[in-house]
């Protein structure tokens, strides 16, 4: 009884016959000049996936170096560059762009709009981000350093002062780091402004704020946080450039500058940044868990409140990264308590996801597999986060591999897992093809296995006192066997990612036709053809509840009857 039909358009595609090379050029030109939010979203995601592979390769090199004691696979200088570039790449060139890519692609579709509020700014923001990344990696060729040869930044992703001052980082490698991130930072700001404007002013008829998909809510929060937090980072990097080029002394401790000021500037960006990365992962979870549990999300208002709460609280916790630098007892107490406070809204979210799954008819398709693993792993990450929020504990373990394990549990166990979930979930919408489910399962199980082998073990090697960012270690420390296990886990993850990449390419050409709504979902993007036409919706959607497609599929029992 359900055959509700919607007059939604396909595309017009009358293309004159042209040669293969000119077709390729025309295709490339089309992507370069596009202002379509969907194409820009795909560009963001593709760009990030390429850098994910690059950063992954860097991580593998690091793990080969650390697999055995007294190893010299890499030189100390190259090791420093690789862990700096790995961290910088994962945070700035993978994490943020890929999540903003999903926002770009999905927010207008989910709110029934035809594009972002500022399409040209959207294109400008993407290209700034992309060129910023390329500038950073050009440092491998152009970053003349101490030895007069190309080198990449080697000051770690947080670039503590005074290491970044001219006296300790001669040459241009650190300049590349600062300038590239300033450039990409402006791109990020542009995208954040665009998402806020789009969400607030372009929702379709009937889509009140409290009917917006939670994905859109969380992207709104993330964008607001981005505006607040990228600014101090950009300011600090501008000051660093002034120090290095114009003889300023902001962070020059030998001339009265303050290294601690850099740490404050960096972490007032850096900690909310973790939430800027993880909130979109929550957003993805909010869409996938209900659809694959066949139930509405549990506690929508509480989820919205918790997201906004996380946004606020996360702004006041930055100095827990600085317990080991030394704070007053009042400072320690404040930041211990404020950090613990974050556990409340995140706890609400975990309980609500579990409550959504409870009693549902769960389908463990590939998106749901990754989303389920996310809940478990994020819980562990949260618990170790609470442990590290206790200042005395942090004094012991902050500069050890325990912290690296915690951080990667968040960034990989939570964020990367849900990025994979999102790709499995929305790839059919973007390409019209399903990803191969068998390969997806191989990807999932290998990645879970590799992830836990690597990062569970990393906690223990941290307990045993292995410092972070260490180039190598002596055999008598007893860290060798565990490090070998960690590295083996890294290789298993790499194999899983290669399967994933193969699946992306293979399924694009050979995948099953997806149809418009392969998951039987409820948000507006699934009412468009796959892939959606350039204008998204031929006529304006009108929604009456948080699940407009549920209303159409179940006219006898629509949601709007129950939402006040």
């Amino acid at each position: 009884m359900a055959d509700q039909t919607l007059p939604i358009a396909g595309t017009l595609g009358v293309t004159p016959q042209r040669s293969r090379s000119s077709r390729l050029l025309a295709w490339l030109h089309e992507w370069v000049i596009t202002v379509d939010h969907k194409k820009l979203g795909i560009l963001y995601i593709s760009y990030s996936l390429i850098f994910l592979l690059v950063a992954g390769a860097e991580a593998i090199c690091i793990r080969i170096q650390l697999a055995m004691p007294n190893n010299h696979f890499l030189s100390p200088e190259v090791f420093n560059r690789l862990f700096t570039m790995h961290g910088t790449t994962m945070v700035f060139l993978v994490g943020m762009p890929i999540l903003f890519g999903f926002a770009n692609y999905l927010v207008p579709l989910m709110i029934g709009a035809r594009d972002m509020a500022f399409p040209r700014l959207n294109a400008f923001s993407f290209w700034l981000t992309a060129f910023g990344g390329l500038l950073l990696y050009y440092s491998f060729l152009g970053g003349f350093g101490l030895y007069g040869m190309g080198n990449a930044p080697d000051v770690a992703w947080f670039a503590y002062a005074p290491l970044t001052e001219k006296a300790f980082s001669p040459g241009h490698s650190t300049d590349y780091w600062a300038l590239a991130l300033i450039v990409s930072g402006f791109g990020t700001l542009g995208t954040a402004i665009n998402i806020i404007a789009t969400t607030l002013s372009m929702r379709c008829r009937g889509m009140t704020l409290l009917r917006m998909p939670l994905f859109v809510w969380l992207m709104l929060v993330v964008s607001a946080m981005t505006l607040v937090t990228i600014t101090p980072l950009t300011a600090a990097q501008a000051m660093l450039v002034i120090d290095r080029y114009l003889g300023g002394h902001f962070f020059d401790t030998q001339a009265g500058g303050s290294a601690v000021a850099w740490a404050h500037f960096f972490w007032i960006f850096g900690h909310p940044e973790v939430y800027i990365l993880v909130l979109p992962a929550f957003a993805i979870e909010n869409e996938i868990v209900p659809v694959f549990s066949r139930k509405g999300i549990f506690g929508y208002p509480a989820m919205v409140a918790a997201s906004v709460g996380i946004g606020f609280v996360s702004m006041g916790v930055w100095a827990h990264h600085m317990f080991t630098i030394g704070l007053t007892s009042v400072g320690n107490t404040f930041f211990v308590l404020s950090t613990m406070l974050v556990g409340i809204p995140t706890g609400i979210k975990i309980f609500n996801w579990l409550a959504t799954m409870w009693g549902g008819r769960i389908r463990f398709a590939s998106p749901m597999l990754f989303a389920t693993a996310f809940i478990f792993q994020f819980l562990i990450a949260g618990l170790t986060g609470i442990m590290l929020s206790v200042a005395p504990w942090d004094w012991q373990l902050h500069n050890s591999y325990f912290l690296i394990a915690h951080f990667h549990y968040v960034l990989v166990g939570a964020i990367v897992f849900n990025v994979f979930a999102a790709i499995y979930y929305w790839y059919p919408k973007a390409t019209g093809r399903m990803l191969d489910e068998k390969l997806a399962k191989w990807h999932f199980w290998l990645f879970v296995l590799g992830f836990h082998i690597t990062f569970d073990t990393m906690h223990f090697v941290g307990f045993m006192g292995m410092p972070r960012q260490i180039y190598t270690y002596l055999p008598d420390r007893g860290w060798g066997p565990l490090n070998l296990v960690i590295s083996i886990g890294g290789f298993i993850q790499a194999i899983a990612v290669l399967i994933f990449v193969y699946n992306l390419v293979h399924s694009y050409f050979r995948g099953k036709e997806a149809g418009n709504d392969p998951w039987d979902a409820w948000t507006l993007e699934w009412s468009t053809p796959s892939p959606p036409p350039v204008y998204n919706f031929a006529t304006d959607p009108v929604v009456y509840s948080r699940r407009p497609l549920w209303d159409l599929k179940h006219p006898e029992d629509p949601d709007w009857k129950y939402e006040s």
Partner: protein
Amino acid sequence: MTEMAHHKAGAEHGETIHLPAPTHWPIILAFGCTLLAAGLVTTPGIGIFGGVLIVTGCVGWFRQVLPHEAHEDVPVRADKVVIETSRRSVERLQFGPDQRVHLPVETYPIRSGIKGGIAGGFAMILPAILYGLITQHSIWYPVNLLGGAGVANWSHVTTAEIASFHWSWLMIAIVIHGITCLLVGLLYGAMLPILPRHPVLLGGLLAPLLWTGLLHSSMGVINPALDAHISWGWFVVSQVTFGVAAGLVVARDNRIRTSGRLPFFARIGLEAPGLMESNPHAGPPAAERPGPGHQEKH
């Protein structure tokens, strides 16, 4: 761009939709900005070239949007998109008799909690003074203990000093005591719906024990010097006094109806259909409700 401006066209089939025209100026401007930055780490020539691209990009961009934005008309081809599900039946979650689906119909207003907090604040002064008189022969001892919590350099103070009168400590104690009693009262009021039938039990026993347990476990970290001077037995007595006084004040107040007419699941935010009673006032106007006419809306 406003919602109306964006969507007003609402193209019919066979018509076109205005969309922003593709443009190369954003990429040129972005490349120029990047080269300007790259000039600092390479050669000035690259920076200058970047500056030229920035000017060119800005001029080109402005000409694209001024005086009118460049648009392209994208023809619409209407395809039928079927919105359907293979899962036709909707199952309603069943709740057994052992599952808690209880909501108080009546509760005390939150202001009762605040009044109770004020009353309790006065009442607990009595056991506190008794404690001071009995253990240290001074009514100022408990006052100074509380006031000392707000003083940063209190760590080396002697018992004799604590037992003597200090204006500044008295003032600090009054401020701390007043604010804490108000906040605890407010919290008490907010928690009343949990145990609306037994405000004295909640205020007189449960809350003091929880509060004392929390302080007992954390005071050693927050203020070890204060922790060393607190007599936890007397502390519990004063907390219970506070709670009983607050509970009695609340119990004398009139109850108000909760929004119990709303379904339980709506109040806790559960969205699953079939669990809540219908809201006939929500949803689309009758003419727009799902049916043949509604299909055309998407």
